Each structure stands twice: as structure tokens, then as C-alpha cells.
């Protein structure tokens, strides 16, 4: 970029693009409110600190000669610098609070602030999991109340509350199935998984000592019932099914499948990631399910926090309930609540498959989810499912003339709409290019390349907390981008142009991994 040396005078501190007057580069690298922020290790100092602590009493140490002598290499910042560092970083993030986040299968609904307020009540936040149980009866009551809601919403008689996330819940359900089989001396080890399943399903099955076989989908995008029934046999331990499935479609044959699996001596695990489509309107227990994990951070509005934490309680059928993990909450004869832990498992959970996690589960997420459920109520939750499904069908109907929708003629979708990149054929452009173009339009793109059963999948889940106006804006932008891409492909290979970063080189990151800051590597 050269300075303009001929003609009108230029200011020395701002570089202008010749002929347009647009600012090309600033001294700081900032662009008004788009602020660059160095790493903490480039900002802070070893002796920087934003905390004032009381003096250390002069007591001789008793560390057995193991005092940490060498410098650790942890910089600190004063409080104002700390606030500024993280505030500036936060502004480089897209979030639900900023706009629609239509990631299929993730259910990025609004995270209510009442949830945050309730979770921070000291009575819930400032209690230790190992305090005497007489001092935490209110906390145990909350867990018990949430468990009751989950059982009633799903029509299941039992629930394991301790799994820490969805995949952890899958592990819980599959371990319960394995324990049930072992208890009756049954050595069957095959688990059937639809080819459209989320990757955690086969990964989880493998961890429980099962071998995984895929079941194909039919032309309507549902599990091929004939193929499923044909494969069932005395070696099939379980079927792992997602309903609605990962193509956003309700599995209408699930009752039939569950009955057949049970008749063959197996169990039905349901991946509950898509529960938002049916919550309050359909109970998985009525579909014959034996175990289903629920993602509190999806259906029940607990925040995604940039990648976690989640919470994955698992509802269980009567057949699997005896094998549920400890600890869990029960009511004593005296009317108090107690945790069934290692010391009381013999009396109250003799067949439990054991403990899955230290302490009791994601209490912070339990409080948030219960506040949400109580706010919506049974009627409101049914409304949630209805609006979620309505929104997804509206998007599908508004885009299917341009975007290839492989199952648009197979009946309504549920809470998410699936498109493929077939309509881009011949342009050399991909789902990735389209997604990156949406970033410039001010949206987080939909889920890309999942499920694997459709080429260049685009899975779009608006959720019920989007207004029609927001949806219309997204639809308009998606129509605009697609139309432009078809008309002039070459202009669309380099998106995004306007985000804090251009396209990032992920190949380089994997080939030469740099996973932490090193002093010598500073640019």
C-alpha cells in the first residue's frame, strides 16, 4: 500500500487508499470499534496483579522441602486491565445475544437471565457437595424436583442426574444397557446405529465394549424399517436412534422398532439432542424408549458458554432403572432427602453400575433448567416445540426453491431443516463458501457437513426464540447470497471479508500445532 504523494495533502497518522479516501490501515491496527487484543502473555507481567490479599502469617512452612522455586510463567494484570482484556476479546465473538444462531442439532435458543440469577443464589452456589446432607436439603429438593419434571415430560419412571454432558449421558445409558445384559448373563454385543447418527453414538457404544453396525436410511430420510427388522436378532444388544433424527425428521416407525427390539431381547437408546421438537407434545416413553439423554444446554436453555459446560441427565425405563449410576436423590422414610452414595448403595441400588463422576452432577445447570421449566410450564413447553417446528418449516418453505432440500417432499420437517449443496453444482462453490458468506451478512452459519448422509449438508435450526422478522432477514440474506453465488461464483471464494479475521488456515494449524504461547515464538 503506497502513500499518496501527489495531489492533496495526506495526514501522516492515517493511511488512505488512493482515490477513495477510505482508511486502509491505522496505527493501532484497530478499526474503530473492531479492536485487536494481544495475548495475555504479551500484555501482562509476572508481578502484575488485580487482587489484594491479606498478609501471610509468619508461620514456618511445612511443605516437606517441596516448595516451588522456579518461575511458573504466569502473567497478571490489574483489575482495569483485566476487564479491558476480556471485554475486548468478548467483542470478537458471535453469540445468541447478538443474533440468530441457526446451528442444526444445537438448539441455540435464548438463554434467560432469570436462570443466571437463580443459579447465583448463595443457597445454590455457595454450598459444598460433601457438606452434611442435613445442611443441603433445599439443594437435594431441587434435584428431586427437576428429576420429577424430566420423568413426567418424557413419560419415564426413572432418571440419572449425574452425567455432565450429552455424550456423558449417552455413556450412562449404554452402560446401563450393558449392565442389564450382564446381569442376565447375556453376551450379545452388537449395537445398531443409523448411518446418520451423531459421531458420539458409535464412539460411546465402542467404549461399552459393543461393536457398531450401521443401518441405512430409506428414500424418505428415515431409518429403513425393513433393514432394521431384518438385522434384529439374538446378537443385537441395542439400537441407538435419534428422534427426531439428524435430518430433522420424525421417525414414525419408532414404536414398531422399539417393540421389535424388545421382542428380540434388546434395548432402545434414544439420543435426545433433538428433544426441542417434541418436548411437551410427545413423550419418548410412549415410543418404547429404554434410555434417553437430555441435553439441558439444548432443550432447556442452559447457556452454551463458548463450548460448555453442559448437562446430560438420562431418563430410564423400568427395565434399566435398577442399573442407574450412583449417586442419586431419594426420599427417606422420615421424609427427608438423601443422596444414595457408596455407603447406602447396597441397600438402595444394589445393581447400580457404579459412579460416573465425582460428586453429584451439574447443579448449576439444574437450577437454570428448573427455572426455565417452571417459567414455561407444561403448556409453555408444548408451545416451545410448536414454534420451533413452525419456524423450521417456514425457513424450509421459504428456501426450498433455491436451496436443494432433499426431503422437502417427504412431509414436514421438525425443528430443523436440511439442505444439501447440490444446487451449487457446477459453480465450484461449496457449503463452506456459503457459510462464510453468511458471516459477512451478520449471521452465524447453520451446521455444515452434518449429517454425513447428505452431500454438503446444511442443517438449519432456528429455535422458537426467533421472531418472524429475524427469520425473514435470515431468509432474505440466504436467498441473496445463493442467488449471487449462482450468478457470479468467482466473487464468492474468499469470504468472509468483514469479520475480525479472514478465513483461517486450519491445515497449517494441524500440520504444525502451536498449542500455547512461547516467549521465543513472539512475532
Amino acid at each position, binding site marked *: 500500500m503506497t502513500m499518496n504523494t501527489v495531489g492533496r495533502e495526506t495526514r501522516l497518522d492515517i493511511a488512505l487508499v488512493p482515490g477513495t479516501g477510505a482508511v486502509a490501515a491505522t496505527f493501532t491496527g484497530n478499526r474503530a470499534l473492531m479492536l485487536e487484543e494481544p495475548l495475555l502473555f504479551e500484555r501482562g507481567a509476572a508481578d502484575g496483579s488485580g487482587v489484594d490479599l491479606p498478609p501471610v502469617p509468619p508461620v514456618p512452612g511445612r*511443605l516437606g522441602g517441596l516448595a516451588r522455586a522456579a518461575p511458573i510463567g504466569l502473567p497478571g494484570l490489574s483489575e482495569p486491565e483485566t476487564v479491558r482484556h476480556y471485554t475486548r476479546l468478548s467483542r470478537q465473538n458471535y453469540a445468541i*445475544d447478538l443474533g440468530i444462531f441457526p446451528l442444526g442439532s444445537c438448539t441455540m435458543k435464548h438463554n434467560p437471565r432469570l436462570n443466571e440469577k437463580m443459579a447465583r443464589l448463595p443457597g445454590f452456589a455457595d454450598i459444598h457437595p460433601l457438606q452434611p446432607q442435613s445442611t*443441603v436439603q433445599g439443594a437435594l429438593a431441587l434435584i428431586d424436583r427437576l428429576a420429577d419434571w424430566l420423568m413426567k415430560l418424557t413419560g419415564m419412571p426413572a432418571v440419572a442426574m449425574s452425567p455432565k454432558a450429552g455424550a456423558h449421558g449417552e455413556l450412562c445409558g449404554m452402560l446401563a444397557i450393558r449392565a442389564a445384559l450382564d446381569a442376565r448373563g447375556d453376551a450379545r454385543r452388537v449395537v445398531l446405529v443409523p448411518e446418520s447418527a451423531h459421531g458420539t453414538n458409535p464412539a460411546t457404544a465402542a467404549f461399552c465394549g459393543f461393536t457398531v453396525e450401521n443401518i441405512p436410511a430409506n428414500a424418505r430420510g428415515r431409518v429403513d424399517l425393513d433393514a432394521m427388522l431384518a438385522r434384529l436378532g439374538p446378537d443385537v444388544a441395542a439400537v441407538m436412534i435419534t428422534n427426531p433424527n439428524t435430518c430433522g425428521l*420424525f421417525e414414525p416407525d419408532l414404536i414398531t422398532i422399539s417393540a421389535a427390539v424388545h421382542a428380540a431381547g434388546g434395548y432402545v437408546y434414544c439420543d435426545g439432542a433433538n428433544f426441542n421438537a417434541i418436548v411437551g407434545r410427545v413423550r419418548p416413553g410412549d415410543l418404547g424408549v429404554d434410555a434417553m439423554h437430555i441435553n439441558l444446554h439444548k432443550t432447556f436453555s442452559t447457556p452454551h458458554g463458548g463450548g460448555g459446560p453442559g448437562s446430560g441427565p438420562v431418563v430410564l425405563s423400568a427395565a434399566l432403572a435398577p442399573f442407574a449410576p450412583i449417586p442419586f436423590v431419594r426420599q427417606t422414610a422420615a421424609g427427608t432427602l438423601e443422596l444414595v452414595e457408596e455407603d447406602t448403595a447396597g441397600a438402595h441400588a444394589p445393581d447400580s453400575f457404579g459412579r460416573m463422576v465425582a460428586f453429584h452432577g451439574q447443579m*448449576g445447570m439444574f437450577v437454570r433448567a428448573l427455572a426455565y421449566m417452571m417459567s414455561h410450564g407444561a403448556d409453555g413447553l408444548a408451545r416451545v416445540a410448536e414454534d420451533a417446528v413452525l419456524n423450521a418449516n417456514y425457513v424450509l418453505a421459504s428456501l426450498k426453491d433455491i436451496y436443494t432440500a432433499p426431503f422437502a417432499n417427504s412431509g414436514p420437517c421438525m425443528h430443523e431443516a436440511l439442505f444439501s449443496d447440490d444446487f451449487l453444482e457446477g459453480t465450484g462453490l461449496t457449503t463452506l463458501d456459503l457459510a462464510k458468506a453468511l458471516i459477512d451478512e451478520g449471521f452465524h452459519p447453520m451446521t455444515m457437513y452434518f449429517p454425513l448422509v447428505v452431500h454438503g449438508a446444511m442443517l438449519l435450526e432456528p429455535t422458537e426464540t426467533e421472531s418472524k422478522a429475524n427469520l425473514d432477514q435470515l431468509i432474505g440474506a440466504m436467498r441473496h447470497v445463493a442467488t449471487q453465488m449462482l450468478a457470479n461464483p468467482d466473487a464468492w471464494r474468499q469470504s468472509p471479508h468483514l469479520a475480525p479475521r479472514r478465513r483461517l488456515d*486450519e491445515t497449517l494449524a494441524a500440520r504444525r500445532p502451536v498449542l500455547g504461547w512461547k516467549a521465543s515464538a513472539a512475532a
Partner: protein
Amino acid sequence: MRYLPLSDADRAAMLATIGAASIDDLFADVPDAARLPGPIAGLPLHTGEMAVERALMAMAARNTTASTAPFFVGCGAYKHHVPATVDMVIQRGEFLTAYTPYQPEIAQGTLQVLFEFQTQVARLTGMEVANASMYDGSTAMTEAVFMARRITRRARCLVSAGVHPHYTSVLKTLTRFTGDVVVAATPTLAPGAPGHDLDALIAAIDADTSCVVVQNPNLFGHVADLSPLADACHTAGALLIVVVTEIVSLGAIASPGEMGADIVVGEGQSLGAGLLFGGPYLGLFACREKHVRQMPGRLCGETVDAAGKRGFVLTLSTREQHIRREKATSNICTNSGLIALAFSVHLTLLGETGLRHLAALNHARAVQLADRLGRVPGATLLNGPFFNEFTLDLGREARPVVRRLAERGVLGGVSLGRLWPGERTLASAMIVAVTETATDEDFDAFEDALDAVMEGVNA
């Protein structure tokens, strides 16, 4: 309803676009047997914020909080003061309501935080790389054992008796069908070194051993030099996995990395999270660079963008479930992102100077209280070296003592009987944690209450 923006007019217009007569038509695939006549029975209907607050505040009020009583409960979760800034940062909507950074161009906030977090954890533990966090310390420990098996191709895992029994229990549960053989012993209350079993572990290492897992400080608070164990492991081709449940201890004690650990796992709850009745917590996972492709969990790496600017992305994803499916290194999908942010903010506010000061304060206060309580008639301090947690042998069953202390308004510690039920040799022990939050008045209250309870039991 306050979370549902659609109006009836909106719904009608949208149905018209879709070409459906009613929303029920969109649920046509639901079998008749699964259709419900109305809202699910047995559950209340919708209500406003005020009513929800009233109900939940009543539940919350039935709990004794750690700030309202002299508080000395530890054993894997610790009450530390979290600066006000931390909660303000994690409540920013751009952090709270962001997703996993799969579109890195619009997630550099989350990604840079993870890169800084990984660097902080690696340095704190004395290791070369750390991941972007896991669910908690117990599941991180299990993942470390799986990783050791992948690396050594051996299946026998030795677990020190000083490891938190919940952690060992989780490991046993999750390895029942993976081919790992877990060998774990019951601890003894050896005076001067409760729960310490390094010599027994060294003697038990053989050619089938994939790893030895040891906690430092251990459940009983004992602090040890693990270098001889590290040497013995390496001679035999096994890995040393060190568990740290009180991360503040690394501000005072030599790091597991310095002692020769191959994998360090831990619980980060002490910094940033609060007690939270057990979750959400923060699993820490760090190891040597040469093993990075066998690590579980998410990893954030540095790269450049198309304009040559430095940026960050999730990387080495081919290890993970969404790519490898049944061949993945783990089935894990989420990390503990928001809690990792809280940890990182708290550690940034402390800085190295502040962390060392905080650790020194914890240790000094714990030594003060340990000596006082050790002089209460009937109570014996078992520890030689310790950091901020120690074990008292009460000479009688400890669980009723803990209950009676609670009745007197003192949350005095954890009885071993709760963690190791059925082990008569351990039933008389109580583990006490002291942090910077305990005051002299709390010390007085604890000493007086323990005195009274012990005397009462004698009488």
C-alpha cells in the same frame, strides 16, 4: 410468554407460507398412540419470574451456605474467594451465549481465551501442552488412563490409595468394558504420611503396567516428592499420571512436571468456579508435547488468516468423535468452556505473584489451624507435610462428630466414613481444609466446637 416472540398473526402468516392448515399438521408423523390430548399431566402451567423466584428462593433458603458458617470442607472442592470481576466477565453475553468456536472467524474471543487458558494450565502443571478443558477432574483422570493405554499398548493401571475415592470409583466404572485392569489399594492412616504408598506402587510396577496414577497433595493432604516413582515408571516403560485436586497448591509446591509426570490431570474448580454443590466444574489435562496426538478433548491452536493476521482455531480434530466416530480417542463432545474462562480470568487477576501469595496464605493458615486442632483432647494430627488440607484421627467414628459439629453450626470437614464406607480402619479420620476465607473467629469456633463434641462423646 416472555421467551416466545411469535404472535398469532405471525403464526398464521407462516402457516400460509408453508401451506399447512395448522401447527398440528406439522406433527403428522407422530403416531396416534403417542399423541397427547393436552399439556402433560402432573406439571404446573406457565408462570412469571416473580413466582419462579419465590419458589426457588425458598428452596435455596433451606441450605446452609459456606459463607454463613465456619467452613472447612474440602476433599476435591475448595472454598476460595472469587474476585467480583470474574462473574462479571463470564456473564457478558458474548461469552455466555456463544457456542463452540467452529466458525473461528467470528469466535476469536473464545479461541484466544482457550489459547491463553491452555498456556496457563501447561505452565501451572509444569507440562508442555494442555487441552481446552474437560468435564471435571475425575473424568479427566479416566481419560488419562485411556491415553496411557493407547501410548503404551498395555492395560494394567495402578492407582495410589491416596487418590480421591470418587475418582477411583469413576475410573473403575468407566473401564469395566475397555480392557483396562485397574489395581487400587485401600489407604492406611500412617502417621506422618497418611495415604502415602509410593514404595508399594514402585514395587508393583511390572511389564504390563501402562500407568501409575497418584494424587499430590493426596486425599489426606499429604505432599510427596514423586520423582522416585516417575523414575520407576519410566524404567519400566509406564507413564506417570499425577492428579491435582486443589489447583492452588501449584502456587506453593513443585509442579508434577518438575517431578517427572507424563500426564497431569486436575480439578480447576478452586479458581473462578465457586462451590456450586459439585458442578459445573473444570477438568484440567496436560501432557508432554510428544503425546499431543493421543490427547483427548478439544485443542486450540495458533494459525494465520488469509490476510496474514495471527488467529486461533480448534485443531487436531481428527482425534475427536465427530470425525473418527467409533475410533475416536474419546466420546467427549463438550469442554467446560465458561468455567475455563472463569479460571483464566481469576488466574489473570492473581498473576504469578498473587497465586504464590494466595498459596502461601492458604498453607500458613492451614498450619496454624492444624496445630490448634491437633491439641484438642482426643484428636491427633496425622500429617507431616501438607498444603492446605490435613487429616485428624479422632480416635472414634468421625461421621457422628461431623454431624454434631454441623448441629453446632460448624462445617468442620469430611469424615472418611463418607468416602470410604465400610473401611473400619479409616472411620476415625476427618479431613479438614483451610483456605484464605477462614477467619480467626472461624478457627475459634471450630476449636471450641470440636472440643465440646469430643468431650461430649467421651462422657
